[in-house]
């Protein structure tokens, strides 16, 4: 199946969960990442039970804390 991950279309095996994709894509600090799947926001706790399907559009949103000191 095809997924659009971070703006790029790529081929993945069927039956992939969001948790597996996070591992495949080597997402940094995955437990603190928010995923956007077709415009819905999911926290890490929901990754395991989220089954991806052909055509899903995914983005990963990271905590970014710097800027002050």
């Amino acid at each position: 199946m095809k997924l659009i991950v971070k703006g790029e279309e790529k081929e993945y095996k069927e039956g992939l969960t969001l948790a597996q994709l996070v591992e495949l894509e080597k997402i940094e600090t995955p437990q603190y990442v928010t995923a956007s799947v077709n415009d819905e926001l999911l926290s890490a706790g929901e990754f395991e039970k989220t089954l991806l399907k052909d055509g899903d559009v995914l983005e990963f949103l990271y905590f970014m804390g710097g800027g002050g000191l």
Partner: protein
Amino acid sequence: MAFSNEQIERYSRHIILKEVGVKGQKRLLNGKVLIIGAGGLGAPAAMYLAAAGVGTIGIADADEVDLSNLQRQIIHSTKDLGKAKVISAKETMEEINPDVTVNTYHTFVSADNISELIKDYDFIIDGTDNFPAKFLINDACVMAKKPFSHAGIIRFQGQLMTYVPGEGPCYRCVFKNPPPKDAVPTCRQAGVIGAMGGIIGSLQAMEAVKYLLGVGELLTGYLLTYDALKMTFRKIKLPKHVADCPVCGDNPTIHELVDYEQAECDGAF
């Protein structure tokens, strides 16, 4: 209020613009923006807003200028070492543009003082470096119905989003709770390239200027990310409304401001 000849010349490149003109420049001169954090993000934001003639600029920061700040915090100079950042920032801003009134708040923002701080401002810029402050600013702005610009920078990366009450999601819609202390690297531990603050802080200033002018499209409903190594900007669409957001959702559960455990970055000193 008529422009003086000096103002006509100072703001000529603004007044020429169709989107600004006389009315827009007057809006900027009557505008009030609060910058929380006089560091990597706040420095360029403060300088551009002062130069633009934003009439009242508040700047809040509890720290003093340290040598390790000067690689990126261009509002401060070597001569300012040891000086309160808000004072150093005020001096630079007034040198750039004496038209501007700079209010300084030499303090950490906290649940006790933030509502009072933001009360009189039209737009808030979050230039803080830690998650407790970022969540506090978000919650306070949502509750007080104040628009603000969130941003973060680390290594060669930066991101920002703009919250406008009723127009799109807040920071907490995207990130439900602050990460545990030290769970996510901050710029003190991970480093940051100096120009990153310049780019992202200037974008925050641009959002404030657009908001005051009432022109263009703000970064509401989007998170803009910048990867300097790949030299890519990505504008990631966010849901327009997050029903279960604990602060701006349909049934908010957060009704009071809280101070989360203090600053990820602070532990190191």
